[in-house]
């Protein structure tokens, strides 16, 4: 008997079959009513079919590989839990880097999921719709695995018992939160430039080096595993970032100035956000991977510049802010850590002074600045602490209206002078940490006047614990704010030395490694 065997479909045919139903033309609704968001940003798209979906050749195997990764990841997380993997880290100070990561990043991933899901609906071509939907699924998976990873730590260590609550309220967490909310409230094209190009393509290595390699260097297998599981998706996301920029630029020459403006804005927004990452690399990983300065030089000044060289044929220029960042790379990690050290009672993690070895490492990595500007600060703090007068800045800081970081950055050419910029808009004064944040404001003041700045919200009385009476004679505003944040002073923050975390870790590690 003859059998007629159908030929197996090729990848391209399979992809076309999987996605073809999305490609219909509406017959009784107008195209612009179905896709209401694709014109108002001013971008001109003539042929959506020119979008080459960079995922199309992997789509078929995507589900299989993702499922396999999940199984492996959870097997490792399970083993990590059963073997008390947290006791294998180099030094319990390391856990504080994880506290920052786990307080800030899961909500970024979740918002990335929301943003891409919206784009999956609003992009007008099948290629970008599919690409954005797939990325939305990835981002949701990252949020989930990170939230699961929190339980590796928060049952043992203080400060991350209520990460979502703090993420919406705690002062320094407004920096990553507002970054992503800025992106999510952009139009679809700016969002995809912000996240897929500037953040995922240009800056992603600077995020992954400290977290994934940092975890590996510091014996944290759990984090390393979820890091790798997410990072294998990033390669695909980076491809989308590159594809999207080429697509926009090839569609119409009028798109160039708009795209350039977004690249300038989001490179700066991203780098400001990475200040905290710089600090983690230089101060919080007991076993350092590389300095922030080295990472910036390799991943931006070398790799990033070759990318911009490629884009030069479209007329794209290196963002102006890069010159300033080259100067700031010698400073920002030190400025950020001294800030958190001095603001220790207002955080959800522990701080410490670098020990002698660490000071020497910093001197070696920052020969132009550390001994001149920063070592004396740590020596002063140490002297004070040894006298029993640990330094704390008793004041609430002024925040930048755009990046929401305390105005701690100095003039690019004068590292002892804080940079301050200000403009008036609608009869109100607004203040900024830099020319670049000021320009972002001036381009869209209506957006940034709405910024939820934690310091001003505290002053307006919007951040006190429920039931506390601000008019009572014994009202302590700072105590009430900490209660509102769900932070227990001294337990969830303050010095690492003498903390419950330090004591518990030493005791548990002792139990795991000896017969005491």
């Amino acid at each position, binding site marked *: 008997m003859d059998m007629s065997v159908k030929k197996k479909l090729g990848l391209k045919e399979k992809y076309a079959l999987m996605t073809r139903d999305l490609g219909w033309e509406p017959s009784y609704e107008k195209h612009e009513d179905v896709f209401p968001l694709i014109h108002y940003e001013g971008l001109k798209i003539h042929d959506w079919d020119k979008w080459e979906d960079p995922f199309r050749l992997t789509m078929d195997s995507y589900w299989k590989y993702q499922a396999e990764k999940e199984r492996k990841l959870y097997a490792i997380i399970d083993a990590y839990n059963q073997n008390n993997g947290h006791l294998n880290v180099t030094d319990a100070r390391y856990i504080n880097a994880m506290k920052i990561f786990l307080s800030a990043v899961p909500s970024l991933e979740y918002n990335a999921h929301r943003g891409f899901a919206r784009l999956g609906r609003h992009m007008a071509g099948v290629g970008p719709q599919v690409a954005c939907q797939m990325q939305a699924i990835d981002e949701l998976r990252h949020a989930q695995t990170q939230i699961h990873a929190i339980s590796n730590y928060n049952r043992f260590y203080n400060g991350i018992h209520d990460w979502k609550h703090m993420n919406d309220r705690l002062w320094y967490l407004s920096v990553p939160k507002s970054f992503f909310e800025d992106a999510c409230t952009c139009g679809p094209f700016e969002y995809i430039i912000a996240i897929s190009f500037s953040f995922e393509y240009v800056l992603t290595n600077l995020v992954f080096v400290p977290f994934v390699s940092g975890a590996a260097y510091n014996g944290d297998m759990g984090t390393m595993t979820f890091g790798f599981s997410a990072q294998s998706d990033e390669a695909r996301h980076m491809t989308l970032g590159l594809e999207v920029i080429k697509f926009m630029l090839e569609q119409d020459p009028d798109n160039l100035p708009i795209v350039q403006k977004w690249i300038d804005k989001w490179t700066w927004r991203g780098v400001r956000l990475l200040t905290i990452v710089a600090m983690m690399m230089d101060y919080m990983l007991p076993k350092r991977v590389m300095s922030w300065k080295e990472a910036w030089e390799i991943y931006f000044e070398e790799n990033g510049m070759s990318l911009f060289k490629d884009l030069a044929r479209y007329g794209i220029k290196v963002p102006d802010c890069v010159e300033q960042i080259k100067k700031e790379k010698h400073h920002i990690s030190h400025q950020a850590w001294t800030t958190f050290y001095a603001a220790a009672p207002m955080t959800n993690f522990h701080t410490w002074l670098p020990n002698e070895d660490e000071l020497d490492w910093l001197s070696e990595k920052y020969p132009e600045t550390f001994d001149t500007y920063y070592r004396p600060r740590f020596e002063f703090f140490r002297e004070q602490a040894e006298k029993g007068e640990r330094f704390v800045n008793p004041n609430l800081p002024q925040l930048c209206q755009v990046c929401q970081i305390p105005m701690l950055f100095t003039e690019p050419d004068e590292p*002892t002078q804080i940079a301050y910029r200000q403009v008036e808009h609608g009869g109100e004064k607004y203040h900024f940490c830099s020319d670049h944040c000021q320009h972002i404001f001036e381009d869209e003041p209506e957006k940034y006047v709405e910024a939820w700045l934690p310091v001003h919200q505290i002053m307006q009385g919007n951040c006190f614990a429920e039931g506390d009476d601000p008019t009572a004679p014994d009202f302590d505003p700072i105590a009430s704010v900490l209660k509102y944040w769900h932070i227990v002073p001294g337990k969830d923050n303050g010095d690492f030395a003498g903390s419950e975390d330090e004591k518990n870790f030493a005791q548990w590690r002792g139990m795991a490694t000896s017969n005491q």
Partner: protein
Amino acid sequence: MSVQSIRPFEPVVKDAAANFHGLQVVYLCWDKHLMFYAPIAKMLPPSMTFGELIDAEITPAYSRHPDFARIDWSAVEWRKDGEAFTPALDKSLADNGITHKTAIHFTTPGLDGIGGSGF
């Protein structure tokens, strides 16, 4: 430039003066003293005198610094929103032209942080 949006909207000015219960936000910064890492934000009555600002706000905010006790207040150089000015100590903040979200910076000649390091 102005924001591009799908439909017109009236932005909510989150930090409008009216939201601070009759007080106003004033930023203070003792330049070249980075121990305090950033300018500080205070919520103050517009009727407070500049002298009271020094005694009741600036002093507790910065007195921890070893330079503080050595300040010669007659030599202090003041700036208001970036412009040099001479405050009248017995006049109110309002009469000194200090309005909501004014930034006051001051330098103390000869005192530039520990060992002149700006810290």
